[in-house]
């Protein structure tokens, strides 16, 4: 049976290449149809913020890559609820369908996967 991988993305979308390169790991794994999940934690939740205008910083739209995840077999984006709350993001107006994970369940969630890559 294929080994599963969790990619934990902890960086804001405008911090250089970190968020993009985390997502690239997920997309590459999805292309091989591997069992793979993405968890946005800490500043990683800023990737979900609605109405982003990456063109003001001459950046590509990371949001489009997030939207592409289902095409690569990654149906849901997992998100730490307390990271969202701490950063003042409104859970009801995010740009993407997500699955919230409570703080008390984060450890169990991580332990569901064979491998973890945190970026």
């Amino acid at each position, binding site marked *: 049976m*294929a*080994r599963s*991988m969790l990619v934990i993305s902890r960086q804001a979308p405008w911090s250089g*290449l*970190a968020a993009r*390169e985390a997502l*690239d*790991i997920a997309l*590459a*794994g999805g*292309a*091989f149809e*591997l069992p793979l999940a993405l968890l946005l934690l800490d500043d990683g939740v800023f990737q979900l913020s609605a109405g982003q205008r990456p063109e003001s910083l001459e950046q590509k739209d990371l949001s489009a890559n997030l939207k592409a995840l289902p095409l690569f077999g990654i149906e849901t984006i997992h998100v730490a609820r307390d990271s969202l709350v701490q950063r003042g993001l409104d859970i009801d107006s995010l740009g993407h369908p997500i699955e919230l994970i409570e703080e008390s369940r984060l450890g169990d969630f991580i332990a569901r996967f*064979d*491998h*973890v*890559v*945190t*970026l």
Partner: protein
Amino acid sequence: MKFTIAVFGAPHAPGTRRALRFAQAALAGGHEIVRVFLYREAVQTASANLVSPQDETDMGRAWQRFVADNQIDAVVCIAAALRRGVLDTGEAQRYQRPAANLAAGWALSGLGQLHEAAQQCDRLVCFGDQ
């Protein structure tokens, strides 16, 4: 056990030295290393152009020796390497850049190589900048 070692930090980052010491200890403990994979800033560790002051450890050279001495499968993410200016002969020609600077022993390849190694190993251990 079978290990895959992923390195993300710059050549002179403490995490890059720690990854090497961990890899050496894994072999010494009778374990196997399926692959070493350099990603993000770590691709610079595979640059043949690094020049360390004489009284400092040359991390690029130390990794290169480890890879050669133990015949480690040593892969550098090609997308990360292009962005950061680490090119093999083929890429240097393709993009008409002055010269290849990938050190011997390392191979440029895709992120698929990280996943392939993850499929073959018991533990994937990642090391960052700190």
